[in-house]
């Protein structure tokens, strides 16, 4: 070959080698890039491997219960606006208007979001319990802590089911719990194929709730040793208080009394004899500003910034015209017109009448970023529930009942003392006291339905009696469309 050809060939070969090399390098793929690990989400197989992560999962269960659509916000608001103490001011379909005037349908976002939030919580609890049994218990090792975690998970599950019953199912008293209740989900779900589950009866759901609470009572500690934990996590007295409420809704006065007696002494001063020293706070305002008084048996905390209820979920947003959006004012024909509720009563400070004569609930100080803790159970409720159960069971002017009623009234109004002449009057006084004491705390609606009373008319919304299908929330379409055993 000539030199020219030799050089040309060399040139070609060099260029070819370079290019082939480049191409071959390009052709090699990166195995690590093909199997990436997310940096912003925690793979689920990590969460039962360390004690810390297991403890965090328990916090997570409460956090799911606390979401703005459930006990941290709307779950409480819905229970109140169904009642007769609030008038809708804005006519806005996304802030419970249709729930307030009982025209909400099953396809409404509010009906679905609250249902879904509660069942999300329940599934988290189920997965947690199964994961603990499968290996988490061994990682935690400490038997007391294991029992505590199991107990807390069952408590949260029971509270979620109970919250659902209060809105979506017929009251127990209607037919001793024979009405269709809720699908009872007790196994954790992570895959497709489990949509269909028929409803258990209301009675069966109550049975499951009480079974969970009994287990919880045995497992949770007496005292967490920390003021915040004693309000945000379930301790023994909290479980007992919830049991008391559950029995009250069943109309089982005997068991209400049995439970209450564990945390309420026979006579004043009324203070829990064991466990956390729950008692009435001297100034009720402290309960809504200091959050961790012994009066709060269980509350849902909000701390601002990265822990907020979310837009249009905050209680103060609904109730305050200046620091909120003034969605609901107080009904002049509701409890605020009660003659027996004196103007000197400390609780009147929560009723703020403006220049136009419109009254607003100022119980939650509110204002962005809305750090108002949402009460779930207060000691005052524990006392009044016991009082009511005693009055109904003995059908008499029960002395302890009267004493309990007066204890609650005297905390805010020392000048009024109840001396009812009959059992009926005593019961009415107790119910009135509940209406005054728990204004805006999500108890008015359940107090009406558990006794099969009629929702009184208010503003432009008519009265709704127990036979009206709107008495309870409609079945959410997120369920009925996909659960074919409904």
């Amino acid at each position: 070959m000539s030199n020219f050809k030799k050089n040309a060939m060399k040139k070609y070969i060099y260029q070819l080698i370079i290019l082939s090399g480049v191409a071959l390098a390009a052709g090699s793929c990166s195995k690590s890039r093909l199997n990436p690990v997310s940096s912003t989400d925690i793979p689920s197989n990590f969460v039962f491997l360390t004690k810390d992560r297991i403890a965090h999962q328990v916090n997570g269960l409460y956090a799911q219960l606390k979401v703005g659509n459930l006990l941290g916000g709307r779950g409480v608001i819905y229970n109140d606006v169904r009642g007769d103490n609030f008038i809708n001011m804005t006519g806005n379909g996304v802030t419970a208007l249709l729930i307030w005037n009982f025209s909400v349908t099953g396809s409404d976002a509010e009906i679905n979001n609250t249902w879904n939030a509660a069942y999300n919580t329940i599934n988290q609890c189920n997965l947690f319990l199964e994961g603990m049994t499968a290996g988490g218990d061994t990682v935690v090792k400490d038997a007391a802590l294991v029992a505590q975690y199991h107990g807390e998970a069952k408590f949260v599950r029971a509270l979620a089911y109970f919250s659902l019953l209060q809105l979506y199912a017929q009251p127990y008293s209607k037919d001793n719990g024979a009405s269709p209740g809720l699908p009872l989900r007790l196994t954790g779900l992570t895959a497709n194929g489990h949509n269909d589950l028929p409803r258990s009866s209301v009675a069966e759901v109550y049975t499951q709730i009480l079974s969970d609470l009994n287990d919880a009572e045995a497992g949770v500690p007496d005292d967490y040793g920390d003021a915040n934990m004693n309000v945000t996590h379930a301790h023994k007295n909290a479980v007992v208080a919830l049991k008391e409420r559950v029995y009250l809704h069943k109309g089982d006065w005997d068991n209400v009394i049995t439970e209450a007696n564990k945390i309420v002494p026979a006579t004043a001063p009324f203070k829990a004899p064991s466990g956390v020293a729950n008692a009435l706070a001297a100034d009720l305002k402290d309960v809504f500003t200091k959050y961790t008084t012994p009066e709060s048996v269980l509350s849902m905390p909000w701390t601002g910034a990265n822990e907020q209820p979310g837009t249009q979920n905050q209680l103060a947003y609904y109730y305050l015209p200046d620091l909120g959006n003034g969605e609901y004012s107080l009904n002049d024909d509701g409890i605020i017109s009660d003659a027996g509720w004196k103007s000197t009563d400390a609780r009147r400070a929560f009723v703020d009448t403006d220049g136009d004569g419109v009254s607003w609930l100022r119980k939650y100080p509110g204002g962005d970023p809305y750090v108002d803790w949402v009460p779930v159970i207060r000691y005052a409720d524990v006392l009044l529930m016991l009082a009511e159960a005693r009055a109904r069971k003995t059908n008499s002017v029960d002395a302890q009942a009267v004493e309990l009623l007066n204890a609650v009234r005297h905390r805010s109004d020392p000048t009024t003392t109840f001396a009812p002449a009959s059992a009926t009057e005593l019961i009415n006084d107790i119910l009135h006291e509940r209406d005054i004491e728990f204004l805006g705390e999500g108890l008015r609606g359940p107090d009406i339905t558990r006794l099969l009373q009629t929702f009184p008319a208010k503003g432009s919304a008519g009265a709704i009696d127990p036979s009206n299908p709107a008495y309870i929330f409609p079945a959410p379409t997120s369920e009925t469309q996909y659960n074919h055993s409904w």
Partner: protein
Amino acid sequence: MRKLLTLLAVLVLSSVLAFAQTKLITGRVTDQQGQPVPFSTIRVKGTKKGVSADADGSYSIRANSGETLIVSGAGIEVKEATVGVGSTLDFVITRRNSSLAEVVVVGYGVQRKSDVTGNIATVKGASIADNPVQSFDAALGGKAAGVQITSANGVVNNPPVFRIRGTNSISLSSYPLIVIDGVPTFTGDVSMSEAASNPLASINPADIESLDVLKDAAATAIYGSRAANGVVIITTKHGKRGKTKVTYDGWVGQTKAFRLWKMLDADQYMMIKNEGVANKTGATAKFLPTNGPDGKEINTNWKDYVYHTGISHSHSLNVSGGNEATTYYIAAGYTRQEGIVVTNTFERKNFRFNLDHKVSKIFSIGVNAGYSNELNKAATSTGSLPGQAYSTGGLGRIALILPPNIGPFNNDGSYNVNGAAIGPMNNVKPGISYYNPVVLIDNNHSSTENNHIQGNAYLQLKPIPDITLRTVYGVDNLNSDNDFYLTPLNGDGYPGGEAINTFLKYKRWIWTSTAQYDHIFADRHTVGFLVGTEQQNTTQIGFGLDRTNVNDAYYTNAQGGWTDNVSATVNNNTNGINTQNYLVSGFGRLNYDFDKKYFVSGSFRRDGYSAFAPGRKYGNFWSASVAYDIAKEGFWANSGIGKIVNTLRLRGSYGTVGNISGIADFASYPFHATKLYDGSTGLYFSQAGNKSLTWETSKKTDVGLQFSLWNDLVTGDVAWYKNSIDGLIINIPQAGSTGIPSLTIPMNVGSMYNRGWEITLGARPVSGKDFRWNTSFNITLNKNMVTALAPTVPSITYTTSSLEQTSITLPGYSIGTIYVLPTAGVDPATGRRIFVNANGDKLGYNFDVKKYYDLKTGAVAKSIDPVKDKRPMFNAIPKYYGGWENTFHYGAFDLGILATYEGGFYVYNGTQASIRDNRFWNSSVDVLRRWTHAGQVTDIPRIVYGDNVSNGSANPISENVQKGDFVKIRNASIGYTLPTKLLSKAGISNARVYVSGQNLVIITKYKGPDPEVSTNGNDTQGQGVDRNSVANGRTLTIGLNIGF
């Protein structure tokens, strides 16, 4: 992959060693204008040796001195020349017929149009360059069969709905793969502000050479797992050899809203509302007039505050040219465009640099680089982008429904406000919860600023004439800065104000290496073989700052003094996003043709994608196609019919491709996430995932016929296609009680098809010296049918903007069928809206007592239940669509008209529900027809204050669904080319002045402003919904094209 390349290297080396005793002749084939002639065939006369020239006209062949070389090819006259002493031989040929020699861009290469066996439609960049649009996709409507472009609303730079051959996915995106200079680019709305931002706007339409739309399996299978929705390849301009050319294109224009709803004035409003109050038991609202500063009753036309005449202008300058070795194209552009909504603007500065250089006879390099800076602004929500339909501050709705008897200012000049809402003035208890738009327009601001770099660099080697080795490294880096300020005075920012800054970084690199072998055997067998590998890595990072409660109203951005800070939410993640995905592939293509009459092709691609779980990451995609050029047969050319039909080509293809567009990067995996509980960490189950997840597959069949008659006087292309899609990822809805996170599990279960015809006809009815008329008509008839979802999922409902369930997808219907309660007008006896329940019973609704009455018996009936009584009633996907383009030349004048049309579909006119609502909302003049006395026959029910059921707000009703069929004069332009004698004195080689209009005329029965609308953007399941959106405006421009 490695093995294939090694084999190729060995092959090449052995051919290098087998040189015979001839010399290497190289040269270029150009036409009489000096333009390169691509892909001509050069043969050595009397031998079986032949090569194909490349796209640039360059060839190299071994021959002896004294031998003759023959150049031939489609559309050129045959030329011969003898090899002399030197080793260079150039040819200058005469073109016979330009269209067939055209080059079409296919995946990873270019081919002569007459060799392509797949279905590809080409749109020349010149045909869209002067359109007053923000991004090139908005100008594609009506230009290519199979392509459907819907401009969703009048917000500037919102991504239009882009579909090729129907909607091809349910849960993933149906948006085609857009490849710009070899780099698949980001698509969709990337903005996190109130403005819209389409990343395709980074390419100045004036810089585009051609857009090639790949539709069938033969054309798209080489893109494998991303090809199911079609592929659009954008090629930017490259320089041409010769004198340096400078071009300036500019236009200025205005845009106005038109066909707006006619609303009640103040007196009519008060009369109607007070009538409604009188008809409602217990209603205490009163609607009373307020006197303005001039002493007269306030009568506000709110549209005047929201809409204006938008002024826009655009300037593009480019310089291109080159010599034997180097060609370049350098361009710069600036445009600022205003929309019909006040404060909504788009501003772009862009720069492009494309360079190709031949280092030696066998080695060349090049770079394509584009940089663009875009600023998209909108002070406050237009209520028109996906998710915004029910924004309390959405300007589209506010312009219509605010009471006309109140104004934005009090008499003392201060803003009329009441907390976060507008003040009611003298109205009593109207419950107005909507904002004062003037406060928001004056004080809020939001914008998305993009800095976008797109480009590639390549090395190419042709070691021997038949082999081309090429490696390309490309990048697409988009940095997007979002700014958002909400005033504390009114609206969503009340009372503390809010400022959000979000930064998003989209980064992609792609590395492709290919080897192409082309050879002509025995003068008759042409073989082309391509093999290649590719890796693509994409990273997305997004984070931001969300500040609330301003310390002093002086601060209007996130860097001022604020009380509270949280991390901004990005793509629904409160912590921001930081994610990546990776795609690795090997592919190949084989083309064979015999005598340029019989063509066979096949392609194959294997993709591995990171989002799928181990064991499901890889997939194989392939296609096979054939074509037969009957008109090239001897018997045809000699027959009588051959004189009339000069091209007749039959074509068929079949293959399987995939779709992964829009799937989350970690969709297959189960995750936990964290949230706080009283400041402590809480861990919760956040994603169930699915380890079996993989791509959707689409089996595409295409059969076509191309013909031309009377020497290309008439040309046509008829194709029948079917896309059978299965393994559709369906987010299987879980019943609420399962508690599964997001209540869905994604599974590959669904199936759907799109089937139809595409017909394109072109003609040159008149082509005289003084007068020419070209026409081109295309129509696509498409049938979309969902055939299966999942055994446990009979239907999937779709909720517009998380609030109104407007559409449903179920087997036996087209995707996203409009899902409403059937209504049957108004009962003349009572004025009640008539609902029809699932049994077919007609029920009249009385809002006063919230009960339904059976029309036959008068008794109270079971209430209408949306779950039981709603029905999938109306098809939202057009059954046919297309365009008709006519261009006329008379002397120096030219006239072009493009009409587009869509038909066979309905639109849910949700805005009509808004403007017939009986709360404080203003109504359209339709309500003046309302029922007032027994026996009156009308379509508007009795007005009862507060009634939001009879008008269709509580649940969508069939009364508000209207036929959407339309014909639009989408573009019309008149131009005048100035005489060259005049221009040459100024050194200008050509100049044209023109006037054009866009969206000029709409012929339709639809009652809303524009039936071309999509409140749900590109969402596959929510097409055909018009809810409170701002409609497209009408644009007029005047422009100038100058060449130096």
